[in-house]
């Protein structure tokens, strides 16, 4: 199973400014300290091995879209702005013979998680099959509405692919193209759904974003620990610090890195991917959050270590 992140930012797509790029280049040049690089390979080695991720790369700015490669058809969680890049990449794979069946799984219907669909090129392919799985009974309404003329020039009705909306039920195991799929209701405005995907080899990935773990509901977190149980990878909303999540950002529908680590520890999960990054965070802020999450895991570990990674646009994780 391969998990590929096409969009990892929450709420709003972001892009680096000219000053941000200049600052990265300046810092890299200073770090090089006068060294000369004879070719691109040597320079790349320096960037990858001697610069921090925030200095030499970027976490990206597309909103949520995560691909799970585990069979002949496509499996994608959410249709944030990262979906556009995925769609174009899938066209190349389709030309090489890939199945044109797309299985989408929507956490919820807020704008940042559906905004990529009007730009999803395969939706115009009459030979493509698009199944949009959601816990929400009004998923189709949300998609059609965002392409009404007041909002977008291309109406939903012009899409040529075979598009089907499939409602999933929490507590049931659904089989979708040889993948076992379970869903759980999460706390978020208008509700959101987490997903548990298990392939034929028993590899399990959890997608749990836009899920607030409320102070008043700590006793029911056992349900999430069961849902996350022994997962190979848990992709979790870690948008806010714990303090922010219980104070100024309470009821904003998101979670914190510390809660995600604790849930994964309790669930004996193997790897946690920090996800749905705050759009106001610069790369340095996300990197700091990642480092702190790793340290918190070390400080509170009471069993096997949990690998804590930080999702970025373009990250691939092989399970």
């Amino acid at each position: 199973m391969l998990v590929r992140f096409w969009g990892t930012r929450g709420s709003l797509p972001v892009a680096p400014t000219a000053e941000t790029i200049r600052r990265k280049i300046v810092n890299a040049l200073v770090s090089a300290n006068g060294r000369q690089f004879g070719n691109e390979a040597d320079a790349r080695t320096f960037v990858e091995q001697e610069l921090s991720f925030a200095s030499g790369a970027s976490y990206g700015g597309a909103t949520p879209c995560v691909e799970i490669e585990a069979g002949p058809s496509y499996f994608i969680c959410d249709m944030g702005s990262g979906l556009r890049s995925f769609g174009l990449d899938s066209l190349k794979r389709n030309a090489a013979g890939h199945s044109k069946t797309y299985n989408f799984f929507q956490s919820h219907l807020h704008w940042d998680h559906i905004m990529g669909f009007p730009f999803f090129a395969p939706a115009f392919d009459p030979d493509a099959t698009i199944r949009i799985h959601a816990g929400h009974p009004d998923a189709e309404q949300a998609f059609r509405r965002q392409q009404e003329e007041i909002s977008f020039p291309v109406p939903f009705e012009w899409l040529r692919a075979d598009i089907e909306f499939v409602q999933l039920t929490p507590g049931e195991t659904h089989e979708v193209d040889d993948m076992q799929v379970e869903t759980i209701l999460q706390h978020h405005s208008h509700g959101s759904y987490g997903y548990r995907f298990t392939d034929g080899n028993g590899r399990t990935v959890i997608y749990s974003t836009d899920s607030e773990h409320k102070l008043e509901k700590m006793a029911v977190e056992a349900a999430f620990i069961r849902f996350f149980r022994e997962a190979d990878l848990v992709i979790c909303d870690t948008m806010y610090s714990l303090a922010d999540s219980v104070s100024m950002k309470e009821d904003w529908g998101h979670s914190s890195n510390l809660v995600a680590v604790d849930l994964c520890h309790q669930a004996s999960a193997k790897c946690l991917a920090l996800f749905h990054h705050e759009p106001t965070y610069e790369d340095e802020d996300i990197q700091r959050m990642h480092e702190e999450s790793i340290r918190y895991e070390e400080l509170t570990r009471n069993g096997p270590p949990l690998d804590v990674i930080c999702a970025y646009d373009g990250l691939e994780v092989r399970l």
Partner: protein
Amino acid sequence: MEYSLDMQDNAVIVRVDGRVDESTWEAFGAGLSDAVQQAGQSGLALVVIDLSELDYMSSRGLRVLTVAKRQADESAISISLASPNDVMREILAISRYDKLFTITDTIELKH
């Protein structure tokens, strides 16, 4: 995890021993609630949580602190955290809870 309550001068002191995690947070929460109630009934305006014997606190424990703080705020009672060890200092910083609570190196009974 064990805790004890002690009334001193103008504060209720909560001493916590062990760790507050997924198995002990409810008992810790009950203890904090009890401390806030006792402070209110005694006309005291301060609850000090003595962390000197606390190994660490997970996010459950930290969130229980917030629940207690809300209960205390309703009665104009302050909660401060005293004598955290190095691990707790890191956790308080990582969680940004050092922005939500007054943290002192020793038990200070004036607020």
